[in-house]
């Protein structure tokens, strides 16, 4: 791999992560103004987070600086694989969908729903495999959480019954 490619890859990682840190730091530091900061010896709720966000911002800046320096010795074997958009959406969407539907659909359908989502997160999933997984995992969750632990969750929610 030509040296310039590795250099760009290293730069991007550092650059972006540095930007994220600086960005979040700015967000928190800015929001600190809403809370009383107080003095170092009589700290208000905004004091400590303000200091920490400033420190984090500094770290972020250092990381950005490192991005522009000579190529860091990153693992050359570590290619950057493309982001698995479908997988990410389905996996991260799972908890969100569950949260939205748990009271409406109830435990059984909501669990089944997110399990199917998780099943199709992998590109190589077949319909047969998905159905099998869904049935087994939903039953398993039922057994553990509803029956085993006796959590007060409705099996079928208000939209259905």
């Amino acid at each position, binding site marked *: 791999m030509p040296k310039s490619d590795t250099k760009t890859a290293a730069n991007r*990682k550092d650059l972006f992560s540095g930007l994220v840190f600086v960005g979040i730091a700015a967000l928190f530091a800015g929001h600190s103004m809403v809370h009383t900061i107080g003095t170092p010896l009589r700290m208000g709720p905004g004091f400590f987070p303000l200091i920490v966000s400033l420190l984090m911002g500094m770290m972020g800046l250092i990381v950005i600086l490192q991005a522009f320096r000579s190529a860091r010795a990153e693992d050359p074997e570590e290619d950057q694989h493309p982001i698995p958009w479908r997988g990410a959406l389905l996996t991260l969407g799972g908890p969100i969908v*569950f949260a939205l539907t*748990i009271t409406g659909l109830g435990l059984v359908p909501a669990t089944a729903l997110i399990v199917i989502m*998780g099943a199709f*997160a992998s590109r190589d999933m077949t319909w047969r495999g998905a159905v099998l997984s869904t049935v087994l995992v*939903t039953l398993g969750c039922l057994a553990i959480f509803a029956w085993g*632990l006796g959590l007060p969750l409705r099996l079928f929610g208000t939209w259905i019954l």
Partner: protein
Amino acid sequence: MEDLLSNVALGLTTAMSLTNLFYCFVGVLVGTAVGILPGLGPLATIALLLPLTFGMSPTSALIMLSGIFYGSQYGGSTTAILIKLPGEAAAAVTAIDGHQMAKKGRAGAALATAAIGSFFAGTVATVLIVLVAPPLASFALSFGPPEYFSLVVLGLIFSVTLAHGSPTKALAMTFLGILIGTMGRDIYTGEFRYTFGLTLLEDGVELTGLAIAVFGLAEILRNLETPVEQRPVVAKVKGLFPTRQDLRRAGLPVVRGTFLGSLLGVLPGAGAIIASFASYSLEKRLSSRKEEFGHGAIEGVAGPESANNAAAQTSFIPMLTLGVPGNAIMAVMLGALLIQGITPGPTFISANPELFWGVIASMWLGNLMLLVLNLPLVGIWVKILTIPYRHLVPIILGVCTVGTYSIGLHAADLYIMAGMGLIGYVLLRWGCEPAPLILGFVLGPLMEEYLRRSLIISRGDPMIFFQRPISATLLLLALIAIVAMVSPRLRRKRAEIIVEGES
């Protein structure tokens, strides 16, 4: 000495009654299961089972409840090793090197080492409780807010060693963790901080959900990156048990982890999490194979797992000997005892010798049961790794989601979990590791709480941290740690400059 032996004998006879053996077994079994399940933890389980204990004798009740607690420490490391999903936040550290070992086909060795190390730690911790419970307890009491502050500072400095990549990024992740930890209600004024107007953030971020998100979910996304054909075949499992070389390497870390964990566990508020992180840092510092850490060093599993378990056992000491609960779980157990009419405290041991010594003995027996339970299971667990990944994802997703929801039945926890999973994944792609974030999240708010409280107590005088001997010592250690970490780098920089100058 005679007294001691007769007490131990009393304890063993009490613990080995059929009823108590049964409850011990039930406790550790449930505990292991709960530890394996992401989300629901020992605290919620113990609370759920509390009504059951009303009908039991106090001894049996405490035996069962404590079994659940230290049993969950065993269980939590299983999923951490297998799928990099810490079932309990305390197992997060094990997930770092443990999972790497699993990827290299050494899951069996990792699991077995964790179990053996935990058993050793449990045994030693039990002995320590028997011998030095009262002095350890008074040691714990001498820790006030300034001492805790200094301890936490020391802990945070070690967080840098948790990452095997860039230390700057590790520090940044630690700070990020601290900031996430500050979101929620402020202890002193009761107002909401950094919730940005979102109701869902008002109760702050939940630790287990966060750990699952940044370790487990982010890891899933990472694994989904590689298309099936290119996915590295999980190396053939090279034997189920640790080799002799493994055991030799794991030996000292187990011992060190045990003592570190025993000490930290006694301090109310410190707990198993700090113990495992501290052990990891210690082992990395002392190891002659530093580069291996983060890529499957067995010391990174043996030490933290032992520390974990030792801390879990010794956290009983303040509760039993002083009536002072060290963490939420101890508080529930204290409540269980009080309801039964038993008052833990300095007179507890002499007033209820059967109960005290019986519980101590059962702790050791429980650890033995856990070892016997877990070692054969290693084979089964390892088989799980052979399930095609496309099936593992829905299982993990399903159990994590329902598990996290079951903690408090808050939809907010799930939204946060999804969000943090995204952030964790993105940062992971950019070379920032999750472990320092978790440590920052746990320790940051503690540090702030103790800092503010110390300054309130000292009426604004910052010298309080240096005037108290323990606190001053800890801060000195922290300073030494910083210097030790920075100087090799400075020396290298200087060497580079000299070389460049000469050329």
